[in-house]
């Protein structure tokens, strides 16, 4: 009898559990993030693009990147106009900012009466001073380190005060931050560096109200209070699982852009996708965005196939199922469903680098250069691309990835040591003093090659050994964890290494910085490249505004690097996206992430 009762109860429960779950609400956009999502919703603690994908839709920065226009250009977001600047007699540069009026923080209990107040200049200063607060562990202080006049002194003073048991004093002045009125302020930076404006579009510099930080303290990381088009309500973020963005009802009147790419072909492509149709409409165009986080790709792919997601990046194992690899065209069965495919080149610089301070592979004499050039010519990038990346990567000369000023036409620079050219490689190897791969004493040339042991790095390294072996050079592989690789490079132990760099912002200056002698290891300049003439060019570039003269300088620097060959085998990945027909206005990009406000849902096409 007991068994019968248990079985009956189980059957009853199962019956009750079979009730259908509520269908997706109308006008709701369901999208994925291909990771376990953000780790914080506090801008000053954020670092990853997944943090950015949520934070930059809730908080706002002073500037943003234009959504549709290409090449990429900035425009005001919280500002009423682009900032202007003047160079001071002492060599510093002062930027003048004017905020938009009527920008309000979202309603939240942290404000008096629960009503969000207007954003003013003090909020900007407060948000930026947070970078210097030890409570935030200086996660992103590098943004302003040595940039804003007086910020380093402010940080040190406050650190001493906190150590002495006092409170961090946000009201203490920073000499480079000057308030003119509630809506106007000036920022003086130590050197006239153009990239300062790029920092102002990065989500870490977004504006946070002091009331929220004071009320929620460290829990501001889970309780965002911004001025942006969306809000994250209590309980709407399940870390590692999903997050829901809800329209901010007090968001100001902002409209969908009308500026298309300057290239007529790109503009026509945007028009064909209907990206221009919502121009002038009030943002955001969706009331609710449900973002799910996917770490293993199969679940993501099944949910997209089942129509539960509006768009997806295509994981590499599903490329063949969605695109014809050879032509990179979307397969017909997907096109028949109204799905649109996009190929988006990433700002990647994947390379094999040399430690320029190494007595064997480093140095700047003709012989030393010849050795590196020989290895570059022996390297078969096309074969690597075909074997390991389905032929989908973009190969190019130099350190500047596609899409940026200074990227050589079709990836081929006037100076090029792109292989494979085994004969020329052998000749150069002889010039370097290693005919047939042996030195004057007949001892074979052996190079320690460091690479991470993740993914298919073992196979990739074997291929590298084959290429170098074709000219008689032996690569001795050191496959280690990425953290160990990083230490080896920073300590200048790695003679040669496989590495990559993703641009922090879409400007060639960011990649060219890797070769500035002041960025040498343990900085990010893993090559330890050190040429005064290059440094002079880089420091000149830093203060130049975009234009033909700047482009020419970038090209000169690029060609100088190609000739010196501190690296070879540059590649950039291409990310492929699929978009369901009911998602409107989606122009995939990974260069910025505050585009959720432009997306719209057409339920009639579901």
């Amino acid at each position, binding site marked *: 009898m007991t068994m019968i009762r248990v079985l009956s109860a189980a059957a009853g429960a199962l*019956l009750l559990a079979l*009730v259908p779950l*509520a269908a997706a609400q109308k006008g709701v956009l369901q999208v994925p993030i291909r990771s376990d999502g953000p780790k914080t919703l506090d801008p000053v603690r954020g670092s990853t693009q997944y943090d950015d994908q949520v934070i930059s839709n809730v908080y706002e920065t002073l500037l943003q990147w234009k959504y549709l226009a290409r090449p990429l250009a900035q425009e005001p977001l919280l500002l009423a106009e682009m900032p202007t600047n003047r160079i001071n007699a002492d060599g510093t540069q002062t930027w003048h900012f004017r905020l938009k009026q009527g920008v309000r923080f979202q309603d939240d209990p942290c404000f008096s009466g629960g009503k969000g107040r207007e954003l003013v200049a003090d909020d900007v200063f407060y948000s930026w001073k947070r970078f210097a607060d030890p409570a935030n562990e*200086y996660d992103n202080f590098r943004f302003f380190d040595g940039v804003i006049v007086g910020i380093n002194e402010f940080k040190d003073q406050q650190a001493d005060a906190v150590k002495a048991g006092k409170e961090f004093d946000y009201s203490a002045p920073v000499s480079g931050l000057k308030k003119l009125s509630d809506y106007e302020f000036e920022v003086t930076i130590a050197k006239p560096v153009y990239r300062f404006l790029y920092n102002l579009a990065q989500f870490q510099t977004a504006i946070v109200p002091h009331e929220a930080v004071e009320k929620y*303290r460290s829990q501001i990381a889970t309780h965002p209070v911004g001025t942006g088009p969306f809000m994250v309500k209590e309980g709407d973020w399940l870390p590692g699982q999903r997050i829901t963005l809800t329209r901010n009802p007090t968001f100001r009147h902002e409209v969908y852009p009308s500026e298309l790419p300057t290239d007529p072909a790109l503009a026509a492509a945007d028009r064909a996708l209907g990206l221009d149709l919502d121009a002038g409409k009030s943002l955001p165009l969706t009331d609710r965005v449900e973002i799910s986080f996917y770490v293993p790709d*199969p*679940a993501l792919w099944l949910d997209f196939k089942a129509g539960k997601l509006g768009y997806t990046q295509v994981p590499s194992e599903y490329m063949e199922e969605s695109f014809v690899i050879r032509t990179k065209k979307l397969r017909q069965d997907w096109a028949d469903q109204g799905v649109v495919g996009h190929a988006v080149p990433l700002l990647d610089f994947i390379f094999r680098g040399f430690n320029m301070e190494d007595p064997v592979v480093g140095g700047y004499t003709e012989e030393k250069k010849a050795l590196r050039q020989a290895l570059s010519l022996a390297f078969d990038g096309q074969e690597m691309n075909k074997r390991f990346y389905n032929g989908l990567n973009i190969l190019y000369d130099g350190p500047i990835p596609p899409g940026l000023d200074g990227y050589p036409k079709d990836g081929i620079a006037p100076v090029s040591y792109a292989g494979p050219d085994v004969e020329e490689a052998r000749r150069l190897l002889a010039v370097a003093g290693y005919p047939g791969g042996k030195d004057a004493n007949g001892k074979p040339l052996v190079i320690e090659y460091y690479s991470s042991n993740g993914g298919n790095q073992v196979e990739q390294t074997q291929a590298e050994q084959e290429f170098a072996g074709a000219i008689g050079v032996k690569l001795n592989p050191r496959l280690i964890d990425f953290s160990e690789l990083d230490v080896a490079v920073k300590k200048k132990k790695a003679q040669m290494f496989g590495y990559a760099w993703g641009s922090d912002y879409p400007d060639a200056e960011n990649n060219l910085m890797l070769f500035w002698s002041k960025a040498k290891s343990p900085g990010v300049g893993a090559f330890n490249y050190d040429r005064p003439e290059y440094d002079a060019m880089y420091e000149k570039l830093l203060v130049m505004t975009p234009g033909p003269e700047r482009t020419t300088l970038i090209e000169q620097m690029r060609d100088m690097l190609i000739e010196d060959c501190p690296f070879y085998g540059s590649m950039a990945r291409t990310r492929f996206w699929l978009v369901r027909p009911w998602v409107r206005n989606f122009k995939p990009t990974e260069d910025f992430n505050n585009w959720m406000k432009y997306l719209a849902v057409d339920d009639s096409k579901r």
Partner: protein
Amino acid sequence: MWSFILRRLLVSIPVYLGIILIVMAALRVSDPVYAYLGKNATPETIVAKRAAMGLDEPFLVQYAKFVGRIATLNFGDETSPDPRQRYESWKYAGQSVGLKLRQAVGPSLSVTIPELMLTTTISVIIGMLCAYFRGTWFDRATMALVVMGMSVSVLVFIVLGQKLAGFSLKDAFGIDWFSPSGFEPWWERPFLAFPGDPAERLWGFIPVASPALAMWRYYCLLPVLIYVVVGVGYDTRFYRAVMVEETGRDHITTARAKGAGRAKIMFVHMLKNAMIPVITRVMISLPFLVAGSILLEYQFRIPGMGKLIIDAIRDKDFPIIQAFTAVFAAVFIVTNILTDVLYALVDPRVRLS
């Protein structure tokens, strides 16, 4: 019995303290702060992180403080202004380790408890039947099936389950019973509801429903079933062997001679006497109920303890790894003590002395 439990607990304390000492020392062999922050870390960020976690203190002080945390079950208070009191996850700023552990227990138990109950019930019943009918076609066919089930990698079941039950069932037949992955806190929904809208009723007319169970079924039933298919193989073989041994015992022969029915022999005489190995096996599984199933939780995106620890290891989230290991060791020790107590309860011959 209470004195036995107390004695065992007292004996376990030095063992546990030793485990914690070894774990803490092992986690500090290479600098956890540098491993976490990676290449972009500045010296002052490293110092700030160390200070926030108390890693700048002497090892024995850290040890004493951590033992204090375990003793008071205090794995941080995210609302505290003092970063050391907050004891935050490194990956998820603003969220204490305690909060992360608490959040992960529910999803893990949502899968592991039903799985253990189902697997044990099914395996014991099949084991008994096979033992009773051993050597017959039923025994052979069943054992062939369970061996087949346990021989196939669980990954194959996961991939097939997600594709067939999570996708194809809906794609081909419009039956959306299982999600290929994901999780929602189903216990936050009402357990009983009386939907007025026919669209929300089962088959359009049954007026009673359980939104909570429906949510559980959508996200958890498929991983539970996969777990059961794999687990039943191992357990059935074990329980069959136990039951076979039991069928040869004198009391079973006596029961048969006295004319007891098959069901009575199996469920009363055999099962009662085979409870010690059943309890042993179930109790061994208990710590893993809390720890979750790493593979299933990872593949099904269930934010349980298994996923928490695998993510923490991947992200080098040192506070989570340290606390998880301590909790797991404690659960393991408590389970061992509990197992001994249960032995005595089910078998009067066992004396707790």
